[in-house]
């Protein structure tokens, strides 16, 4: 995108445009300004919404945040004060680790296939198209799928939530990794081949290492997305009040799920905890996003 972008003169700086501006009829000039004003206003609205969300989450969240919140499970009623979401944090962490361990290698392998082997073949096109489509599948439906296919036989639990998150992360990782692999310069691969390396040696020793920062960016963004997913977890892990570390067949808590429960029950203490949880979740998500940007800026290609 940047290549094309750089070639477009920014209209505001163009002398051409200033020249026409002086000679056009005033109606047209006003319409021009009106639309520019509208675009600026649209941007201002969007940016201020971002600001309002972050500001309010930080403000309300900090008010409810405490050491107790970070280290204690919640009390047994939404009416009671005190306690925290540590059980949800543990649940979220367990599921994210498992989902990443499974989806990252699978996603990268699929991307290698698409970028290096599949090319313009029908199968590659099909996979690419449906990966894109799958990023648009409602996450609640992914939850329903895991529920009907697995939870009915194996029971609610962290592993089920992790599978749902894997399905959500996989297409994101496939598509972003493929883009990164495509950016690896032809010369680099040719040089490797010229030294007598086979195609698979080239991929493992040359292509993957040079695309690694970009790939990890995609993975981090997928993790950030999965960390905030709530809907599929309702259907796969159900939620719990106590600290659970069992992976199988026992309902477990997750941070977003606890925020959701706090938000839909009209008790002040529960809402307080929901705000603190929202702050915690936003910090986690933004940390992964920033990590992703950091990795991206380190990228050598």
């Amino acid at each position, binding site marked *: 995108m940047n290549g094309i972008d750089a070639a477009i003169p920014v209209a505001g700086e163009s002398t051409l445009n200033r020249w026409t501006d002086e000679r056009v009829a005033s109606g047209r000039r006003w319409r021009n300004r009106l639309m520019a004003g509208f675009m600026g206003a649209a941007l201002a609205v969007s940016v201020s919404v971002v600001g309002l969300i972050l500001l309010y989450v930080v403000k309300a969240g900090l008010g409810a945040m405490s050491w107790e919140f970070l280290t204690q499970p919640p009390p047994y009623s939404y009416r009671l004060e005190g306690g925290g979401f540590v059980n949800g944090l543990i649940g979220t962490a367990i599921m994210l680790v498992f989902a990443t361990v499974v989806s990252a290698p699978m996603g990268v392998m699929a991307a290698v296939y698409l970028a290096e082997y599949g090319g313009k073949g029908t199968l590659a096109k099909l996979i690419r198209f449906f990966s894109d489509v799958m990023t648009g599948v409602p996450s609640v439906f992914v939850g329903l799928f895991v529920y009907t*296919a697995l939870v009915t036989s194996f029971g609610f639990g962290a592993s089920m939530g992790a599978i749902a998150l894997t399905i959500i992360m996989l297409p994101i990782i496939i598509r972003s990794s493929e883009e990164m692999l495509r950016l690896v310069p032809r010369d680099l691969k040719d040089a490797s081949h010229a030294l007598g390396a086979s195609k698979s040696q080239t991929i493992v020793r040359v292509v993957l290492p040079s695309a690694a920062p970009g790939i990890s960016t995609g993975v981090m963004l997928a993790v950030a997305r999965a960390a905030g997913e709530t*809907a599929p977890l309702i259907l796969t892990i159900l939620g719990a009040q106590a600290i659970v570390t069992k992976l199988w067949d026992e309902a477990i808590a997750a941070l977003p799920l606890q925020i959701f429960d706090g938000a839909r029950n009209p008790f002040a203490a529960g809402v307080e905890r929901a705000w603190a949880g929202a702050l915690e979740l936003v910090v986690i998500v933004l940390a992964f996003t920033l990590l992703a940007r950091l990795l991206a800026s380190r990228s050598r290609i």
Partner: protein
Amino acid sequence: MLAGLLVLLFLAGMVFSTTRTALPIFREAGLSFFTSTDWQPTAGHYGALAFIYGTVVTSAIALVVGVPLSLGVALFLTEISPRRIRGPLTYLVDLLAMVPSVVYGLWGILFLLPHFLQPVAVFLNRYLGFIPFFRGPVSGLSYFGAGIVLAVMIIPIVSSLSREVFSAVPVEDRHAAYALGATRWEMIRGAVLSRGRAGVVGAVMLGMGRAFGETIAVALLIGSRPEVSVSFLQPGYSMAAVIANTFQEANGSGIAALVAIGVVLFVITIIVNMVARALVWRFVR
């Protein structure tokens, strides 16, 4: 290396597994699933019309409000913004995509509702109450509230895709428009928007898919009343929201009925997404 096949496998598995669970419901309810608003799964009444209606209405509100904003943002960033601030501004708008939907929901009911949505709803009702869409009584949790929050949520996806589409419009087209004496807006309308129309339609449809499937924020804001109201200011329900809100209390046929709603939702979003992807792909690649 055929890990990619897994995606296709997952997709096929999704369709098969959920449809199998939902089939008895569709068979029993027949067409009344789409035409009745009587939703009592325990009593064998499976009328999902209120949910379908709610999904369509909230998404429509989201598009009407969100699309002009998104296009404005995209055009500002590609056509007007000085290059120096373009990067940071783009990053800020993309941050909207990183906010988890449960945080949107929480922020929506506790901040936006009392400070913005409620006053606006009262205003609309007072001055435009003669239009059935804005008829009272004003209820805080409503199609309107859910739609506005959805509008914010689709801004990042619609604007970032339209930005890609606009950037792909050849520079010669722009220069040609200027050479004909066009103002900047006339250039945008004549060269950028008309060349990018298919891509923009695709981007809007992807936003629509996102709005259809959004669950948590809508579940918190729509008011959870399984009825069809013409007025946007009344509470309602949506397909995704009813799944999230009632799953924990449902059992047996109730769960199967929710899965049936999920299947309908899936079929709609997948069609929207396939058409949208095809449109965007044709343009950007």
